[in-house]
């Protein structure tokens, strides 16, 4: 690369390249985006690993996440404290998993975390109801929501405990049709 950048040390960039699916250029671009979110908070010089976190409210306003009904849960799943405050490490990690280069298995693990609203490592009926309400903007009647959730649990639950564990979820996701693969 031509220009010498002073945001990260080479060793840091190598580490980021190994730990995510991004190239050096993309990581620098991500840093630019991160800086844009809170210019007064985020320093331009990351060589000594400053401990800076951007609050949830700023991150969910990013254009990539703004229209996503699950944006709060996504940011919470990637934050260290579970409250949605992302350091740059978490930020890069989040976009690495959400990028198209991440494998399906990895996305399934994080998808399970996202849909697990009460973070008890199970997707229970309440989690499903919240997912459905977010998905349809609460336009279904409570009775319909109840029916849909019951049917979904009935379909996917393999071990008979009326909740979806990760094994159930992964089993179900692995059978999802790659819609247009066979067209």
């Amino acid at each position, binding site marked *: 690369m031509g220009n010498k950048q002073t945001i990260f040390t080479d060793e840091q960039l190598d580490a980021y390249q*190994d*730990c*995510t699916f991004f190239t050096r250029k993309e990581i620098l671009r991500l840093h630019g985006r991160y800086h844009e979110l809170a210019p007064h908070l985020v320093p331009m010089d990351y060589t000594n690993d400053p401990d800076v976190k951007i609050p949830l409210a700023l991150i969910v306003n990013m*254009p*990539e996440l703004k*229209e*996503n*009904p699950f944006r709060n849960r996504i940011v919470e799943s*990637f*934050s*260290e404290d*579970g409250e949605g405050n992302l350091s740059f*490490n*978490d930020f*890069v990690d989040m976009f690495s998993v959400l990028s198209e280069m*991440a*494998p399906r*298995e*990895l996305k399934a*693990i*994080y*998808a399970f975390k996202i849909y697990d609203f009460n*973070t*008890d*490592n199970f997707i229970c009926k309440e989690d*499903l109801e919240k*997912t*459905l309400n977010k*998905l*349809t*903007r609460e*336009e*279904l009647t409570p009775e*319909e929501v109840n*029916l*849909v*959730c019951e*049917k*979904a649990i009935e*379909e*996917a639950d*393999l*071990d*008979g*405990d*009326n909740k979806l*564990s*990760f*094994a159930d*979820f*992964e089993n*179900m*996701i692995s*059978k*999802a*049709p790659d*819609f*247009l693969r*066979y*067209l």
Partner: protein
Amino acid sequence: MADKQASGSFLRLMSEESQASDLIIVFCDDHQETILDQGRCQGAPRRSLGGYSEDEDAWYPTRRWDRNVPLRNLPVSMQEKRDIRDRRNLQRRTIGCWESWRRSQRTVRRRMLEQMVQALSALQLWGRTLHSIEGRFGVSVKVYFVFLRYLVYLNLFNCLLTGALIQAPVFIFRNNIYSSTFKENDSYLDFFLGTGFLERSPVFYGFYTRGSLDGKCLNTPILFLLGVFSVLIFSLVMLVRRTVNGYKHKWMLSGRYNFSMSFKVFCSWDFCIHEPKSAAFKQSNIRNDLKMDLEEERFELLKSQRTLKVRVKIYFLRILLNTVVVILLGAAFCLIYIGTKYSHQQKDSKNYPWLYSLLLQYLPPIIITLVNFMLPHIFRVIVKFEDYSFTSQVNITLVRCIFLKLACLALFLFFLYDTLQKSPQNNQSCWENQFGKEMYKLLVFDLLATFTDTFFIMLPKKLLSEMYPECFLLKVMGRQKFLIQLNVLDLVYTQTVTWVGLFYCPMLTQICVCKLFAIFYIKKFAVQRCCKPTQRMFRASTSSVLFHFVLLLGLLMAFVVLGINLNKLKPSPTCGPFLGSSTVFNVTTMCVDSLPVHVGDFIKFMSSEAFAVPLIVVEILFLTSSMSLRSANNKCIERLKDMLVTCSSDKWYLVKQQAAWLQDQRSPQQSSSRAGSVEGSAPPEPRAHLDFHPLPERSVSQPCDTEPVPTHSRPPWNES
């Protein structure tokens, strides 16, 4: 191994068939509160330090210890990844240089492969257009365009085959010079009628002669046959592969793997949506889809509650409406017959003005297209009265439309064959050219009809509805929708005509490619400018299998037609590469005869009954064994599913035991009152090696003789 232990309220069964007990679920509900109060695993906040043991809250299968798992695929926080990286780097120094070189080569190869795959997928034709269509109109409309693109690829490869095997030899080894100039009698009508200029060109069968390539086995007629059959067989192989893959996928998702509702809840949101309008559209799509599913369930419920009187009435109505459909189809077929006959009779008369004779020539394609345009709409209206659920309505209309299209084409070909057979052979200057011309006319007219429909019907309708939004007539006709199924059937029709006519009009594949390109841009205009996105979701995945299957039917029809024509009709004596032979297969017989004796005998043996019958018997045996293997696997799956349920109940039982024991430890005074419900006072040995999730929280004191349970999800019977 029926281990019945009725303690309190639960029952453990190891069943032969799927008979999971309801009591297990009752048991779980009863004791969940106590268990979860005692041992609730508090959430999974991401740890930033790697201080905990490797299996801490690892409810997913981690393979941190596996050096070959790339760091970026690990589902842990960034800081942990960097720690693991440092650890791996330290360990890497102890590996020899050969090993490290091998590993680096592996990563280099992997990265190169990934880049190649990405580059290839970016090269796909019309990628960006399809992406934008998907964004605005949903996946279902994209299905149509993806199908169109697939046909373009198929036809491009077929072009290569025909170009190499049919056209190239004739051009290279031609005896007389081919002059592609206009002569005096030619006119622009030739492009529509296939006469004159076009008749002398490579488009039709008559152009191809034996030429100077005249070996025993390597001559132009054999290459011609080889070209046609290789195109058909290649198309067959590709289609069968796709249909089977799609059917496998669809079959896997029905019956016991019917995850349709779960997929809709978890997999239907598109995480790439940026704009509020698309988001709102997607949300209403999802909502409508769910409502449709619920409505269907309600319909099924109502259906099962029908009285006998209502049922009789409905069946009577259905029979009546089906008769109406049959009558309509019969009328359509009669029209086609009359049209073909009249057009053939009037073919040679020259005293009509040019427009009238053009219309006469095009009478059969006009009738077929009109019939295929009007009847599907009538079918759609009829099926609403037959009282089926929405999906069934869609499927039944689709089946009727498919039957209509294919039957019209089949009947037209039959009448054509009839006419050609009846007319005296020596009067026909070149009956193969005649056949080829009819196929050519079908294709051309279909393209004209599509063009007219888009630019002279849909576009004015849209402009009118924008200028006069309150017009009553337009409201009655309804909003313009892009009817995917009918459009896909048109594509199937085009492709079938191409296959049928290939022998008699060898450039038909090239013409078909041009036509498909034109259709793509016409339909793209229609969709983007004239139609509004429909809110109702179209069941994409199941119908794509159906469309490939219908395409396969069309291909089979092409095989049948070609077989009948080649066997029953004599090649005409004045044109084409087969002139002079009594059948087309004379050239192959001559080639086989010219081969060395053993090879010739071998080939004759392979095409005789002595070979075919044992082959069929072997195939039947193979099929039977595959089917019995399948049913054995089904039974195995059922048994494994039951084992999962019983394992889960075992888990809960043990957690309950442990919780009860812990409570005993804390409040020994109350233990006496609970002695009856707990087996013994000593803590039961928890069965090690169960897939125990969730783990009780570490803050609760563990009895010291419990072994830490690994968290791989391996079934217990697999333990050594």
